[in-house]
């Protein structure tokens, strides 16, 4: 019997790039997160438009200074993530460590500033709907940041101990994708939470 064949033995058994299904998987997980945040933002505006006064009587707007400053480390973390992902593609351990480490430090700074900022809120989530929706958006996003920081930390440890191969490099690469999405999602939410009440409707 003559059997026609297509020989793939020359093809590499891995690919640290966007061709790997894992990249697609992470991308889709990111889309799920972004969808979640999009619905939360839609909710925020729906609620905003259904009440006369925003924030509700007695609540004070969150201060803008600290969260605005916190954008700086967040913005700087993008190039850090990029360095790590380039390092992963080039199999450059130093670059990976530098990128991951820097990313962790910057994300940590951002997180610390956010937690400090929480102490300036005069409203609880159980105060009224303003408190509920603001705290929930912040809480969800913080959970995401912490989750991805955990992911990054584990990769950092793996690369540091040298127990890594192509799979782990691919992990570093897709970690950056997740970070872009999680950190990037914050910018519109920042505008909504801190500037939205001022820009839409009369400020108090």
């Amino acid at each position, binding site marked *: 019997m003559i059997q026609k064949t297509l020989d793939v033995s020359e093809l590499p*058994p891995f690919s640290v790039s966007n*061709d790997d299904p894992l990249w697609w998987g992470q991308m889709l997980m990111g889309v799920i997160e972004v969808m979640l945040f999009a*619905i939360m933002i839609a909710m925020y505006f729906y*609620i905003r438009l259904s009440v006369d006064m925003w924030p509700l009587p007695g609540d004070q707007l969150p201060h803008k200074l600290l969260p605005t400053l916190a954008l700086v480390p967040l913005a700087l973390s993008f190039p850090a993530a990029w360095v790590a992902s380039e390092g992963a593609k080039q199999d450059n351990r130093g670059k990976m460590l530098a990128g991951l480490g820097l990313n962790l430090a910057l994300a940590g700074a951002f997180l610390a500033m956010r937690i400090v900022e929480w102490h300036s809120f005069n409203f609880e989530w*159980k105060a009224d709907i303003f408190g*509920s929706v603001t705290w929930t958006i912040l809480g969800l996003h913080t959970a995401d940041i912490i989750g991805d920081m955990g992911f990054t930390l584990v990769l950092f440890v793996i690369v540091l101990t040298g127990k890594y191969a192509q799979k782990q490099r691919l992990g570093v690469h897709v970690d950056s994708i997740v970070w872009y999405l999680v950190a990037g999602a914050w910018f519109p939410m920042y505008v909504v939470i801190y500037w939205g009440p001022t820009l839409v409707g009369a400020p108090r």
Partner: protein
Amino acid sequence: MTPIIEAPGETVDPRAGTNEEHRKKLERAWSRPGRIFGFFTATTHTAIGMRYIITAFAFFLAGGIEALLMRTQLAFSNNHFLSADRYNQIFTTHGTTMMFLFAVPMMEGMAVYLVPLMLGTRNVAFPRLNAFGYYMFLFGGLLLYAGVLTNTGPDVGWFAYPPLSGPQYSPGKRVDIWAQMITFTEISALCVATELIATILKMRAPRMSLNRLPLYCWSMLIQSFMVIFAMPAVMVASTIMLLLDRTVATHFVNPAAGGDPLLYQHVFWFFGHPEVYIIFIPALGFVSSIVEAHTRRGVFGYPAMVLALAGTAFIGFGLWVHHMFATGLPQIGESFFTAASMMIAITSGIQIFCWLATIWTGRVRMHTPMYFVLGFIFIFVMGGLTGVMLASVPLDWQVHDTFFVVAHFHYVLIGGAVFPLFGAFHYWYPKMTGRMMNETLGKIEFWILFIGFNMTFFPMHILGLKGMTRRIYTYPPEMGWDNANALATVGAYIIAIGGILFIANVLSSRKTGAPAGRNPWDAGTLEWAADSPPPPYNFEYLPVAAGRYTMWAPAEARAVVTGMRDDRREVLVTSIMDAEPQHRLVLPGSSFWPFLTALLVGGGFVGTVFGFNWYYPTAVAAGVGLIGWFWPKAPRDLRP
């Protein structure tokens, strides 16, 4: 482009040794460890898919028993078979079970089983995520039924509208269990959607360009995208709005503190309406597959079918408001949503017309699957037409929340999803078990189900118009609803008989059915190139697609892939559009971590029913599980 060459000698791939040796090595690489511990480490898609199917079917039976209990209670007026409290728990559990524990997981399970076979690959892209998703689904279902059996079953309807479901009007943990059960099943659905998209886009057989993708895979691709866009909404509704309100006193649904019960409805139906299409789009894929095999030609109008599927999915997100016409929204908005709701009839119509055209010009073979397809067309068209009625705002004001709606969505969901599903069971049963199902019994099943179905649900249209509202546990005799209700109850028991016959057929055919061979229906798609039942590695040599229907292509046009290693779990990654081979991919083997992680996360979620603080240990447990899951076992260098 990798060229296709002719195999040099007797064996397909000299590097792999003889075919026998090759098979043995593959078998070793793809098998899970045996016995009990090994059972929880399975990651092959056929094993996980089969577990999904069996578990979802068990929940289907549970939901069916609940339906019989309800029908018995409603058989005549002023019946005292069930108490109001019990009835409310049962109808809520019935709806929740059928939507979240039967329909969606069943469709996911069928896809997990079939899609990699149809694509000509060996597993899904993320085998461990697949196993994790299954266990989450299982634990979610067990949580709900643990609640039901301890008199803690949810009693607020499968939509759980606040304020009724809020902290003030639903004491106890009934609603919390419901809300967290949703989280379990959502996570499961999202896992499957993610891996199916990655698998369909990146792991197709070489040369299976997108315009050669079987329609069933198209339907699963589109359905998976719908899952990804729709499911986050129900998480916001149930896990954030409802559960946080109930456990940590936020005010999302509290009208007194600025919250809005209608906001919950918007978010819920933004998920809830696409959910219907999430259930029913895979069924359209079943129908296309069955029609192709039984008319012995490809479905007419392949591009139109794909566009219609995509259109259905797209429009499906734009008509959630037609569930809320009675809440008194502005008229202009209502007109928009009426138009959008009617548009869905165009895309559905196109598909019906294409199938009719296929049957018209094909050579029809009347096997049981085809009976179910014809039953589907009959029932689904009627359900679709009553759907057009519901899209009209004034008509909706009259029939909304009545038995007319109950009739409508059972026509759409049972007709549109369960009938094709039964057809699919009969159609792919030989692939899954290696034996044919009994044809005579199959046809008897069909007629009993078809007659029982129409007897149960057709009278409900009239009941609805005659003023019978939904979700009432009893009604007074002077309403004149007794006869139609009695008829419906008899019909429900007839359906049950059909179901029992089906189970009998499945069980007896496993032993006595005629051996099926690889391609008993002479169908065209790639799953029929594998052994029946498929070995854990599916294909000894991965197939190369030769047109839309490789199995119908002449033998000289077909080819297989060589050069894959058979001592580890290798699959082939191909490009998105043209499916050109890009690289090989080593999939992880059997693993206990998905089960363990699901156990830890699931246990934590059960805790969150009782207190928010459980989220913290849950997060830590999830972290531990995931780290164990992904921790490199040894510095593995993936040599070619």
